């Protein structure tokens, strides 16, 4: 299977000499769900933002669908969608208005725009409340709206920073299931980040453990459990971070 994402030595220094991400390298295959896990301030968001072409790497590069985030960011943006951590939406718009607006930025023509909107409407499960202003939505509703927005265009790679943060158990489960289905049935690839190990263990195919800007290990969950002789991902995480 081809690699949708190939990250080679991505490094970011916000301040000279301090590396928020240090030589990070990994890859994500087609239809695969990859998760970056690590404590607060580990460099997850920094790495993700570089891949999303929002910030430029100090050194290194990443290829999305074969396009370089440094040299061809315009091409990369056509292959990805990005869902930021704790993101909001335009409060004066209705849910439908927001979906239509965002679809307009990705679609080539009106027909495609309508198709995207329809897909999101069915996926988000908000029903008639999509006609209401986003200003009156709860956090969970906004997250669902944004999530359906992020997958409605069926991107090669959907990038989600803390996909289920701020959601209750039922909603989080719902979203994990959606992500898994999209990967299995439509062959979409996902790059997720989280510090919720349980969630990651359920949803992702492969994980990378990052701390202090360094990506320490990558592998499937079973591989890692065997390698560290651990019961679950949380133990793996503890061992990796402590033996460093």
């Amino acid at each position, binding site marked *: 299977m081809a690699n949708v994402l190939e990250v080679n030595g991505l490094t970011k220094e916000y301040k000279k000499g301090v590396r928020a991400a240090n030589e990070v390298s990994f890859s994500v295959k087609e239809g695969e769900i990859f998760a970056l896990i690590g404590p607060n301030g580990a460099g997850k968001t920094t790495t993700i933002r570089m891949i999303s*072409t*929002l*910030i430029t790497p100090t050194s290194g590069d990443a290829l999305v669908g074969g396009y370089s985030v440094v040299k061809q960011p315009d091409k990369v943006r056509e292959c990805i*969608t*990005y869902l930021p951590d704790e*993101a909001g939406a*335009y409060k004066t718009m209705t849910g439908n208005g927001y979906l239509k*607006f965002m679809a*307009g930025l*990705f679609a080539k023509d009106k027909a495609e725009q309508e198709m995207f909107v329809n897909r999101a409407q069915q996926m988000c499960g908000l029903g008639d409340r999509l006609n209401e202003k986003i200003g009156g939505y709860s956090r969970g509703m906004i997250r669902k709206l944004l999530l359906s927005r992020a997958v409605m265009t069926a991107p090669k790679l959907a990038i989600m920073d803390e996909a289920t943060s701020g959601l209750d158990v039922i909603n989080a489960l719902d979203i994990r299931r959606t992500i898994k289905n999209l990967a299995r049935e439509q062959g979409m690839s996902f790059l997720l980040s989280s510090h919720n190990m349980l969630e990651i263990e359920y949803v992702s195919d492969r994980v990378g453990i990052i701390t202090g800007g360094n990506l320490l290990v990558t592998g499937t969950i079973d591989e890692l459990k065997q390698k560290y002789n651990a019961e679950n991902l949380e133990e793996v995480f503890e061992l990796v971070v402590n033996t460093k």
Partner: protein
Amino acid sequence: MKFRNLLKKELSELITPQAIFSMIFTMVLLIFMGQIMGSAMEEGFDTSEINICNMDNTEFTEKVLSQLEEKGSKPNMVTISGEDYAAELERLDLNSVIVIPEGFADSILVDKKPAELRYVSELGIGFSGTMSSVSASDSVSAILDTATDEILLQTYGMNEDEIARIKEPVQTVEFTTFSGKTANISAMSLSSVLMMQSMIAPFVIFFLLMMASQMIMTAISTEKIDKTLETLLSAPVPRITVLMAKLVAAVIVALLNALSMMIGFFFYMTGMMGNVTDMVQTETTAVAEATGALNIAEAMNALGLSLGVGEYLLFGLQLFVTVAIGLAISLILGALAEDAKSVQNLTMPIMIMVMIPFFITMFMNVNEMSMGIKAVMYIIPFTHSYLAINNLMAGNMLLFWGGFVYQIIFFAVCMFFAVRIFTTDKIFTMTGALSEMFKKQQQPKAKK
């Protein structure tokens, strides 16, 4: 198509029902206030009603009062007892009264001494109050004037023609000069008209700048805080398109606001000044026939004060560049915002830059200031905006173009930085660096 989509979104965010309401509300309020101010002034200037207490009751005073009536005043005769004027005014429910004491005629006609005339008025506070005390003393001079006529008529046996010649032996013909040109008109009648012109422009500029910069700062900072900007900039749209949609929307809304404000302010000024200008104008036309003085429109042309089409276009262009500078600065400031609180602090620099030259140019002549202050004033780009209309009227084209070119350069520099911030990752990394800088500065203070 993507630009239209973005522009539509920006416009729908800026043109909310509240925004439309406040736009119409300001306009109506201005028009309404103009009406109120106008009628207050009219009342103030109205000299036809005078309260008079005639304690003299001689043939002479009766004659003076009937003369006064012939001249168009309506003396309201009242009776006052004693010298507790405050109580008497309150009892009669009056604001002012003119008291002609007993022996008024005798003093003039028999003793040939200046007679005493008392004018009692309640101190007026506020706009209409001040105006009415001014006009009340006008009615005193009206009495004095008629009294003089009676004296000349009765004691010196003069006829009306002779009296007129003695009272006005000289006729003043007023000339006004402005930037090297001379016109046959009184300066006062012109300045009341000019005041209107030279006040509308700065007010419109002031509100326009405030509104436009507030708008773009809120637009950028809320997008940053809600992280909708990250979503937007990771979509397949050139960043410059996103930026342009924001700017174009802000310009459109700012111009809509300017238009409604200009209409409102125009009616405000005409409502307020209309009566005053009318009075000045009738006065001038009476004299004009005798002296060949020009009417106001003619005089404005003769002095080069009226703006031609070309000059209006230049002013419009200037206004546009002014708004563009405001937007560019606000773009940069908005990009620095981290949370709702920091937005408040970040509006300060632009507020100061807009406000200081607004007040200074309104009350002082920048060109007559000391070199240092003048330089500071001219460095602030908006000073040139406030001075533009005066420079155009005065034909100071060198100053106008100098300011204009400076503003364009200023705009280009600001826009260069704004575009750089938006097209690089500065828009996301700048704030972090800035807040760390602040933390470092605050730490030593905290230790003390």
